[in-house]
């Protein structure tokens, strides 16, 4: 049981690490704000979630697990909202938006 916990936790943590790597790669690879933000959001939600699940498996059933779960909930609430605000600001302030993406005329 103990080594199963160890293996599962390690697998989750390593997956999270790989996702963080992809995030950093994407942030520096893409050129436009919205694309880069999209790449960064992968790490903020999926990467953090997976690595914290790995830590939860390591700690077992106790109060710390509940705290980690609350951290995941908090980050999943706050990170998409901040990305949404950044994208809204970009859409509101960039005067040449149609160079980068299709704009729906209203």
């Amino acid at each position: 049981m103990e080594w199963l916990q160890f293996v599962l936790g390690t697998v989750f943590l390593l997956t999270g690490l790989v996702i963080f790597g992809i995030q950093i790669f994407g942030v520096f690879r893409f050129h436009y704000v919205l694309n880069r933000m999209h790449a960064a959001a992968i790490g903020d939600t999926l990467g953090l979630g997976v690595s914290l699940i790995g830590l939860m498996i390591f700690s077992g059933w106790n109060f710390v697990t509940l705290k980690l779960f609350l951290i995941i909930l908090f980050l999943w609430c706050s990170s998409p909202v901040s990305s949404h605000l950044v994208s809204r600001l970009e859409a509101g302030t960039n005067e040449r938006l149609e160079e980068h993406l299709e704009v729906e005329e209203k």
Partner: protein
Amino acid sequence: MSRRKTNKEYEHTFAFRFFRWLNGEKDPYLNEVEMKPQHYEGPSDETKAEWEREHKEMLERVYDTEHNALLKFSRIAYRVAAVLFCIMLVAVLLITVSYLPPVGNPNNPADNVVAERYIEKGLKETGAVNIVSGMILTYRAFDTFGETNVLFIATTCVMVLLMLDDAILKRQEVKNDRRFEPKNDAILQVIAMILCPIIFIFGIYVILNGHLGPGGGFSGGAIMGAGLILYVSAFGFKSTQRFFNEEVYKVAKITALCMYGLIGSYFYFTGGNGIENHIPLGIPGHILSSGIILPINICVGLEVACTMYAFYALFRRGGL
């Protein structure tokens, strides 16, 4: 030397780009990643020339630099004195360093009984389970009082520099490019409605729990300040001013500082004169225990929360 690939094919490979980057021939981010220099509109050349002319005129007319013997002497004396002062400072510091005890010596003054006493008798004397909290708020309460004063003075200075009148604020609102900021965002408001109470409760928990576990006034106050900032960015300054305006800010901040001063000075006075103070220590581990630590933590928390929020509001808009 034989090449399997032609030069043109080689230019498409990873190795070519890697070595080009390694030799510094081309910056991979130049012209690729979005980078715009900031446009700065400084004063025009005419204004600069006028400034220069005024400066020269002032020097000539007021100081009469050509014929003022005292000014000439003081300039030379100032330079000589500056050089001498620097040399003396260097000498004093070097001599002090040469008197420092060697690292790792067990007889060093740093390895004295103080640290041992904190660990061994800290729980009994302060009643705080969290030794760090007991240390900074009882043994070293004077030091922490200074820190709290620093926060107070810092916000006061920022207020002096950045606070604007309401009329100027209204005029700026039209001109400012802040009007492009997403205001009254529905998603942010819903999330803030869910998160703000939780953040406040967590901040209060951290403050009240400062003597029982990790936490205390500084960290809890920072959390509460972050909650206030989230509330402001979601609902705007108008709705925040219903419960946190300048009056509330002033009252909370000054009351907190004065309370800390009063409690602290009572504690120092009785402790310094060997009189028994009448603040009960309570049972270690209970929420109402450990004497002056809990009220002081509350004061520090209020102070820090106000400071955080005031900095944000003043730098963003120039008013609370």
